[in-house]
């Protein structure tokens, strides 16, 4: 199954990359049983600044990426000391409750990692 897109696609996707192409880490983990925290961490200040400047990643963008209500995107916080952007989502289902599929919230990062941005 073709998962990773090539780094420099042609046509309409030229000059775009996925967040996973340019970030050092894109990761998710519970922040308590009711929230999942997504972290995007860059290797350098320059990449971080470029991302913050042009990715347009606000709560509405994150809600669109995940296909979830805006109210479930609790926060998007820029944390310059770590060259990082932190996003907090409300969990659809409390961790470990019947119907949950990811008790640690550790595999919720992929839509963000595969999201395309201008670069």
């Amino acid at each position, binding site marked *: 199954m073709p998962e990773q897109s090539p780094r420099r696609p042609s046509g309409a996707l030229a000059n775009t990359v996925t967040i996973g192409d340019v970030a050092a880490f894109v990761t998710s983990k519970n*922040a308590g*049983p009711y929230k999942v925290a997504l*972290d995007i961490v860059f290797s350098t200040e320059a990449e971080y600044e470029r991302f913050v400047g042009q990715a347009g990643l606000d709560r509405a963008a994150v809600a669109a990426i995940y296909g979830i209500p805006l109210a479930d995107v609790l926060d998007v916080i820029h944390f310059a000391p770590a060259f990082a952007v932190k996003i907090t989502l409300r969990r659809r289902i409390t*961790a470990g409750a019947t119907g949950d599929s990811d008790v640690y919230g550790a595999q919720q990062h992929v839509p963000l990692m595969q999201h395309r941005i201008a670069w």
Partner: protein
Amino acid sequence: MVAAPDSLTVFAPQGMLGYGIPERSMRLGMERRPDILAVDAGSIDPGPHYLGSGTSFTNRRSVRKDLEMILDAAHAHRIPVLIGSAGGAGGDAHLDWLIEIYREICRERGYSFRTARISAEIDRGWLRRRLADGAISPLDHDNALTPGHLERATRIVGQMGYEPFMRAIEAGAEVVIAGRSFDPVMMGAHALLQGFDRGLTVHMGKLLECGGAAAYPRHGSDGLLATLYRDSFTVEPPNPDKVCTVASVAAHSLYERANPYHMEFPGGAIDLHATRFEQESERRVRISGTRYIAAPHYTIKLEGVERVGYRTIAIAGVRDPILISRFDDYVANIRSRVAERYPDGYRLTIHSYGRNGVMGPIEAARAEQPFELGLVFEVVADDPETSAAVLALTRSAALHVTYPGRKAIAGNLAFPFSPSDIVVGPVYEFTIHHLVEVEDPCAPFAMDLFTP
């Protein structure tokens, strides 16, 4: 009282008791002559089951091996050991499980540390009174606590702050083994007693609580050393193959938290807006400027679970491309066959790995048809017999039910195991995740002193 020292070195040999301690890191860490050994032994991340069942998510043999290494080092160097969130979930059953392992080791080795046991199970009568006084509020959700929640909860713990550990140290404890604790507190109770800055102390504990996770490369269980000074602190891994960098340390300040700039703890919060991270040497980072903000009320986080039923599961694979192409019809047929016999009183979930097993209804990927699927059939019912009966019918229906275009009429599923049906047992859910205001931070946490 001796003069307050200028520095204090804390060694966290691992991020989780039972996850392994590299012997070389332990030896090199102890060569730095730490003043304190401290380790976190628990987490809420493995989910509600462990708090409900009274069992640990860590393995007894692994915990014992790690605890032996820690106690041997503490004995040889005559330094204190502080352990929080004993047994994983930190209830009394968990705490006593760890204390039994501790007693075994001490008996075999002839150790007689003066020891404090601190319970984190909270008295329900006291909680009912706090609830009536309006002193309990929800945390991260909107469900107000009711007397019914307190009544039905299988077990309720509170995350203790620094004060119960400080009381144990003042009582002369050389080893402190405590139930559910706010993760950084065992790293910093000595520091607060010696008057070190509260903001720096909390931030140091936050970095130490996951052991070597604040160093790169981030793999395997490993340790971290921190030295606290009056105006700053440093962190450094004992493992010479790892480094702490500004990025690794700052990134760990983010970990498992909703807001990297602001972290609340019992009695206050730390603010990282003015924090400076400086690369002091190739492997060491110095942190300064983290500020402490006192809270208007001292609060303790409560964690509680309720039993909601009994789970039985079966695992199977599907390789047939015709079935996979008609998967929704197939599932509908299974559900209707089961509902004919058992119309309600249970919850049937079919986890389909290879399709949307991880992201569920928000899965956006529209890949080509997968060549195989992994299925987990799950039934949760009020009693174990109903759970097993509904799962057994689900499993046989799933094996034999038809779907449009079916050619493989002898069976739909590849079972990896016999028996196919797995009794998982009681199912718990988090129902209490609230803050309670307290007058005395030590009062809810009973302490006993003993010598093993």
